[in-house]
């Protein structure tokens, strides 16, 4: 299959020479431009880079030597393939030309077939050079270290791009042929075996591999890298690994932070849930104890009192002298019944679940000797858990106000608005209350927090105490 024509620039001082080169090339389909001196040649090169330049050695102004030197010195032009025409009589010119940077020479007079063959070869070289340049540019610009290495345990590098220095802190030359260090040597010792196993396994299966592992940098820092690569089979049975290594430390760090945050959040949620479960279990136990007392001991005591009473009324006729003893016993029993009632009510007020927070608090206040103002009771009932928490908060705060704060006036406020419910107990006592560990207030704080709410205690010494709990309440 004929190749499409190559771009060729002919630099020839005389028309006959130019024609002997131009005509055969045009006949096979190449695109040919002709200039007559070195300066014009440089201008034409800059305008459009040809695949091959065929230039006379003897030129006016800028001669072949200086043209070659100028082309090699210019980064943009250096890829072009230079063929110099030299006289067959003067072979030393060929050596001079090659030393000046020419890629090839053609001795005049030349055979047509030789010209075409040299141009074809030159074009191939130019293409190869261009693709290598592209590869180099790519390697320099990829945000990772591109490598080719032997599939051995040292990962002996044949080539590795400069990026490896940014990643590892070691220059690429250190790794080439394992001259200073092996690449395996900078892999974190905990990860080395895993990396080796994974690479060999992928190679054996003919699959590409993607690995994340740690390396130790020159400054002893640890970095996370991601490596992609695969085994390549070359001609003549040679094999090697081609791949790229990327620094992913920032991503790993972000991921670890995110995982840490998520774990922390999960812990907080679980802690709150477990606290709520504990409190709920304790409340259920309180309800059960109250019920057991009510159905058991309280009922039984009343029944016993009743029977003693009946016994006394019968004995009054037959053995009246024992009646006072029975009456004393009955009085004692009545005290026990009273104490038991107060105990059971303190453990769990039945009214709280039956008629709600406001009624239970009213009942609590009606049993107190101190005058307590109750304000703004909400009309609807609050969720059971909130009512229980608020009830105990009020009960504990009132106990504190009476027992410790020596308060004269106390007010209780229960409110609900804008998706929040709150309770506030304020007294004019001595202040200085703290929610220290193990205190009643601390326990109340736990209760409120379990509802995802907040408890605030404002109790400056000598200036009363305000205890406020607020929870979300749709």
């Amino acid at each position, binding site marked *: 299959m004929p190749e499409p024509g190559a771009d060729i620039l002919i630099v020839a001082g005389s028309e006959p020479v130019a024609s002997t080169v131009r005509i055969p090339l045009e006949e096979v389909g190449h695109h040919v431009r002709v200039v007559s001196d070195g300066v014009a040649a440089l201008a034409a090169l800059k305008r459009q880079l040809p695949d091959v330049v065929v230039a006379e050695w003897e030129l006016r102004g800028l001669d072949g030597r200086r043209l070659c030197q100028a082309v090699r010195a210019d980064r943009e032009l250096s890829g072009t393939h230079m063929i110099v025409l030299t006289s067959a009589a003067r072979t030393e010119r060929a050596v001079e030309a090659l030393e000046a940077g020419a890629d090839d020479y053609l001795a005049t007079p030349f055979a047509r077939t030789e010209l075409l063959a040299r141009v074809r070869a030159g074009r191939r070289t130019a293409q190869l050079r261009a693709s290598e340049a592209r590869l180099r540019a790519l390697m320099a610009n990829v945000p990772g270290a591109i490598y080719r290495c032997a599939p051995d345990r040292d990962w002996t590098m044949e080539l590795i791009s400069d990026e490896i220095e940014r990643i590892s802190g070691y220059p690429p030359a250190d790794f080439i042929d394992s001259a200073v260090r092996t690449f395996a040597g900078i892999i974190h010792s905990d990860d080395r075996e895993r990396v080796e196993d994974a690479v060999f396994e992928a190679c054996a299966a003919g699959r590409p591999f993607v690995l994340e592992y740690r390396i130790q940098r020159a400054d002893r820092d640890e970095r996370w890298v991601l490596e992609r690569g695969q085994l390549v089979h070359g001609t003549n049975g040679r094999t090697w690994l081609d791949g790229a290594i990327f620094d992913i430390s920032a991503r790993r760090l972000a991921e670890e932070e995110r995982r840490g945050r998520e774990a922390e959040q999960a812990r907080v949620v679980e802690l709150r849930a477990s606290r709520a479960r504990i409190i709920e279990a304790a409340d259920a136990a309180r309800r059960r104890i109250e019920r057991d007392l009510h159905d058991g001991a309280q*009922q*039984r005591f009343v*029944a016993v009192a*009743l029977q003693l009473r009946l016994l006394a009324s019968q004995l009054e006729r037959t053995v009246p002298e024992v009646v006072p003893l029975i009456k004393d016993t009955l009085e004692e029993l009545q005290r026990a019944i009273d104490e038991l*009632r107060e105990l059971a009510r303190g453990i769990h007020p039945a009214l709280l679940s*039956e008629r709600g927070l406001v009624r239970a608090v*009213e*009942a609590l206040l009606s049993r107190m000797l101190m005058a307590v103002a*109750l304000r703004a009771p909400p009309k609807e009932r609050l969720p059971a858990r909130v009512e229980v928490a608020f009830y105990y908060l009020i009960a504990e705060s009132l106990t504190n106000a009476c027992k410790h704060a020596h308060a004269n006036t106390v007010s209780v406020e229960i409110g609900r608005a804008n998706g929040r419910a709150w309770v506030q107990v304020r007294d004019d006592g001595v202040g200085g209350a703290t929610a220290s560990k193990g205190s009643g207030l601390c326990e109340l704080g736990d209760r409120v927090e379990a509802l995802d709410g907040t408890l605030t205690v404002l109790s400056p010494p000598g200036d009363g105490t305000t205890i406020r709990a607020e929870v979300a309440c749709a």
Partner: protein
Amino acid sequence: MRLVVADDSLLLREGLVRLLEEAGFEVVGQAGDADDLVRKVSAHKPDVAVIDVRMPPTNTDDGLRAALKIRLRQPQIGVLVLSAYVEETYAQELLAHGAAGVGYLLKDRVSELGRFTEAVRRVGEGGTVLDPEVVTQLLRSDRRKDHSLVELSPRELETLALMAEGRSNVGIAEQLVVTDRAIEKHVSNIFAKLQLEPVPEDHRRVLAVLHYLRDSSG
């Protein structure tokens, strides 16, 4: 006088029945839960149903709810509610549709035989009996509200509590071991302090007091 007795504790129920029968009442039905109670009251139409607040099925305030139901459907039947705790709220609910034939007592009062049987009789006759504890609570919660400024003396409080039990001046005087005259003075003081017109009938006095307290505490 014919009674239905409802209490889920068999021991206590048997004791109550024996006590009431010895006192001359006729117990025509016994119930162990609220539904059973409502059925037996409908069937027997007793003069009074003696009811424990906490009963099956839910073991919360089923007895009270049954009592309210009976009050609505058969207002001529008296209800005497017994409870391990006396709650102002329950008293108000019981009295919401009138105070005739309503009683509300702490459960352990049943062992004070004379007082208890007297209470049953009074409720059966259309009277009102409230536990002294209820009166104390009502007064306390009334005192919490600044508008009334009720300051009853201890003696007046005792008198009021006995008035709430539906007793006459003579009955109160006997109970407190003072003269009728002294009680009359206390009563008129109470009415003056509560800004109430004195009325002659016993249970009307209770009603007046309770209405006043209920209005101010509601």
